[in-house]
């Protein structure tokens, strides 16, 4: 058992690092845009100093771009903060619809850079489970990582969930490459360990292009 926790701990840190690096890269992008826009305002001021009138419309455009990027950065930092708090409690109540939306925002850039979009679909009813949130985020990232490879460039992965009597069924749709793809070792040794800890199951439906993650209503402590 202790070896199992060591593996989860070590690879969990790697997962935390991967997400943090992606987020900091995204922040660098928004900072770069704000930096260029601030520079552009300075350029306009210098032109105005040389008696070259500047169209107020241009200034409004720059201000609007800066505001967009501040809003974008605020969203990114909010997600980072929420992710950082995932480890606060061993067990917590998770609203699955909200979790899927959050994971799409958190990992959207990692998918986008591989040419794939993530689209959470509204659930027909609210579904809540009691689980370890950080382990769930990690396991779900492993599922997404696999799904992104199977979806292929230019595709959209749609995420949804159904309530079961015993818990929840999370479905990732649009994995066109599943049929006929060479065998992979997904979920791998580590994924299997996380599944065991979260008492979950995975189903791969090649014909439908779906990956299904089944989780219990409550993980036994």
């Amino acid at each position, binding site marked *: 058992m202790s070896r199992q926790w060591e593996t989860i701990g070590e690879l969990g840190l790697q997962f935390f690092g991967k997400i943090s690096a992606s987020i900091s890269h995204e922040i660098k*992008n928004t900072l*770069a*845009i704000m930096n*260029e826009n601030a*520079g*552009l305002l300075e*350029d306009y001021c210098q032109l105005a100093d040389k008696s070259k009138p500047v169209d107020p419309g241009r200034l409004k455009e*720059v201000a609007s771009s800066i505001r967009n990027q501040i809003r974008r950065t605020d969203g990114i930092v909010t997600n980072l903060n929420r992710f950082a708090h995932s480890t606060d409690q061993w067990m917590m109540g998770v609203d699955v619809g909200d979790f899927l939306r959050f994971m799409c925002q958190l990992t959207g850039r990692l998918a986008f*850079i591989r*040419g794939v979009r993530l689209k959470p679909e509204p659930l027909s009813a609210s579904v809540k489970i009691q689980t370890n949130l950080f382990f769930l985020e990690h396991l779900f990232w492993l599922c997404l990582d696999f799904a992104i490879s199977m979806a292929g460039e230019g595709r959209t992965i749609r995420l949804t969930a159904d309530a079961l009597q015993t818990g929840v069924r999370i479905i990732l749709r649009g994995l066109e490459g599943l049929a006929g793809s060479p065998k992979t070792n997904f979920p791998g040794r580590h994924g299997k360990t996380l599944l065991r800890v979260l008492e979950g199951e995975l189903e791969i439906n090649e014909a439908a292009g779906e990956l299904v993650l089944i989780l219990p209503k409550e993980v036994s402590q």
Partner: protein
Amino acid sequence: MKTRVLIVDDEEEFVNALSKRLRIRDYDVTTSLSGEEALEKMKHYLFDVVILDVAMPGMSGIETLREIKKIKPLTEVIMLTGHATVESAIEGMKLGAFDYLLKPCETDDLIAKINLAYNRKAEHEERIREAKVRQILASPRTVLEDE
């Protein structure tokens, strides 16, 4: 003649702002939002310097650089990167990129690198012209053979 710069980055607002700033400084600027679009433009137009983002969806900065060096080996490329992809930028330099800059970058640094890159390209082209002239002077028949 103005230095012809191609900016390649999937962040449209970044491309817009940077292109305006370079035009104010009298550069001839073209923009692309993907590596694929940049390569298409490079087939039809001449550029002196390409400013290339490392992390882009679709064709990555490194793949784009490889293709640029195949079709226009003399065009100089400056890689732009967030800190998470510095290793890729260094790999880019091994593949022939002129230099790299971290985002967000200082305008003066970027301008200095663009000018240095342009000078290197101009010197390289001049050396090729001189070599061709020497070849013609040594053996005037080669001109006829080339034709």
